[in-house]
């Protein structure tokens, strides 16, 4: 696969990942359907890169991130992390893989146990996965707190004593405890104030450099993803509609959904307001339990054609390093690299 990642080596390979949640209804709780939260996504995350995963709420980006770490038992597909296939590994055996792959959650309030001290929170992965002595663990916790910019003196305090940004730092320290290679950041800055967001993003970038981390950065904030990501994948209704290197995607989005999404981002510059042509999408996202026939985006697409309502477009490389699933690019088939 063509890419501009540092080593050109995929650390994580996801192929045709599906995560369907059953819907039970009626007196007998019979299975009446399923929510196709993630419906066949494929992507690679290169070693050392940050892959941004963007989309609107309900598009399946968080489910996708959790499924990649096997926090769910996936419906179908294969996931290779660090040369090991974990798509069908039983949860018990996954435990020994956990140190390689970690997660930073969206809500630092909900993902930290309020009855544990900061030290206990960061130490917990060490208790579970290492045989360090108590003194060694304490030292390691201290190092981690330094690394994420928390004062070591606060180790005995509880999460409620910290601000939102500091709590997110605790969550990041916990994710780093076992020297992971791959971290899924699930909307790590969505709950923070604007002036605090930049602090956390800069920290994530520093840590990536320092520890050689690979990130899957899930976010709905397109401008922040432009800042942090090496490549960007755009999801809509359970599928990746476009994946491209950052500059190419923002300069020239190919998929009509990406175009609309980017044009909808409000820019903090009133003089741009008159110039930027906004594409206002009509209607709402269809339900993932009952996606439309053909292309998932055909109900709202400004460039919809007849074929879109019948046949689902293939997700393929239409230009070197640029993947999209759209019938508009069918003709480019022969010229694509």
């Amino acid at each position, binding site marked *: 696969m063509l890419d501009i990642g540092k080593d050109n080596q995929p650390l994580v390979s996801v192929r045709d990942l599906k995560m369907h949640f059953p819907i039970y209804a009626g007196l007998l709780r019979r299975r009446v359907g399923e929510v196709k939260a993630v419906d066949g996504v494929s992507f690679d995350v290169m070693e050392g890169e940050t892959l941004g995963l963007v989309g609107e709420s309900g598009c399946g980006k968080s489910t996708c991130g959790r499924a990649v770490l096997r926090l769910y038992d996936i419906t179908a597909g294969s996931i290779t992390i660090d040369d090991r296939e974990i798509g069908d590994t039983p949860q018990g055996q996954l435990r020994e893989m956990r140190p390689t792959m970690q997660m930073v959650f969206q809500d630092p309030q909900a993902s930290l146990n309020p009855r544990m001290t900061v030290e206990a929170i960061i130490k917990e992965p060490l208790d579970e996965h290492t045989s360090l002595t108590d003194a060694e663990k304490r030292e390691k916790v201290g190092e981690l707190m330094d690394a994420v910019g928390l004062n070591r003196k606060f180790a005995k305090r509880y999460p409620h004593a910290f601000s939102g940004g500091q709590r997110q730092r605790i969550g990041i320290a916990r994710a780093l405890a076992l020297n992971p290679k791959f971290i899924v950041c699930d909307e790590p800055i969505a709950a923070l104030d604007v002036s605090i967001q930049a602090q956390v993003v800069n920290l994530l970038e520093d840590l990536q450099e320092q520890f050689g981390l690979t990130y899957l950065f899930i976010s709905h904030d397109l401008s922040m993803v432009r800042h942090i990501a090496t490549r960007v994948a755009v999801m809509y209704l359970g599928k990746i509609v476009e994946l491209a290197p950052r500059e190419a995607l923002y300069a020239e989005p190919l998929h009509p959904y990406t175009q609309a999404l980017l044009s909808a981002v409000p820019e903090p510059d009133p003089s*741009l307001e008159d110039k930027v042509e906004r594409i206002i999408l009509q209607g709402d996202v269809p339900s993932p339990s009952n996606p439309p026939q053909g292309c998932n985006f055909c109900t709202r697409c400004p460039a919809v054609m007849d074929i879109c309502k019948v046949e689902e477009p293939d997700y393929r490389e239409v230009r070197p390093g640029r993947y999209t699933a759209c019938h508009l690019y069918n003709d480019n088939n022969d010229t694509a690299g």
Partner: protein
Amino acid sequence: MPDGALPVLDVRDLKTVFKTRAGEVHAVNDVSFALKPGELLGVVGESGSGKSVTMMSLLGLLPSPPADVRGGTVTFGGNDLLKVDAETLRAVRGGKIGFVFQDPMTSLNPVFNVGVQIMEPLRKHMGLNKRDAAKRAQELLELVGIPDAQRRLKDYPHQFSGGMRQRVMIAIALACDPQVLIADEPTTALDVTIQAQILELMKELRSKLGMAVIWITHDLGVIAGIADRVMVMYGGQVVEHAPVKELFRNPQHPYTRALLKTIPTIHGERDARLTIIEGQPPIMMDAPSACPFRDRCDVAFDRCERENPPRYDLGHGHDAACFFDARTGGPRNA
């Protein structure tokens, strides 16, 4: 400050304090602004900057205790809203001043269909009978772009999507032809493509109905696209206030400048590194005797520790509460 037309809403030196066990929190400190007919005033600030509390104070929407509106005047329609009796205030709220809240799910009543909720202000404030109210409710839903309005009146809030619910909220706020619409983070809970729809709707409604709007948000991008004037709040105070283009082109307060630098954009140059504002927003536990931004400010000097800067008039409807003059690069003389 105001030039030409008389303001529809004139707020002077509004002061609100919350009494807590740990002491008094000074949430709003001497906030003043005037809203001219038909204009859209954007209010920007981070959480805890006092932007929502300001708006709720002036309509008497805060429970007391713990809230205590300590002082100031709010002139609307010849009355001081802080002094009028409950009955008069109730007639203003939802009548001449409409309110749209952030979260459309929690601000709509889940056990009544939306028709009933849109008709409530129409019947209470305008004294319409049931039939006329139903007719007007349908018109309102059509006005805010909800298709199949007649049938949707009988639907309950959970049957609407987030963007549609916010349209219903706007319809309720507009029901009695308000002179002023206060919208508190109306698009924050929505996705960007839906937010774009609501912003578009708002522009359309303003040109059709001509009411004045106060739009509270933390998103400078939204403000840039919709506001006529902007008021930046920090630590319960107005730190800068200017016409929108002037504010973005020529920000004078260090907080505004830092805020504009810290947000990444999708157009233009991409910075290798984000500029950050060190530290945390303040918790206003003491009556302000110094500049609330001093600890995070990169141009603060000794005077900022001793005095709280007043809002200096910089001409062209622009003012900033800072002792440092960004134009000369030195302290202000006054």
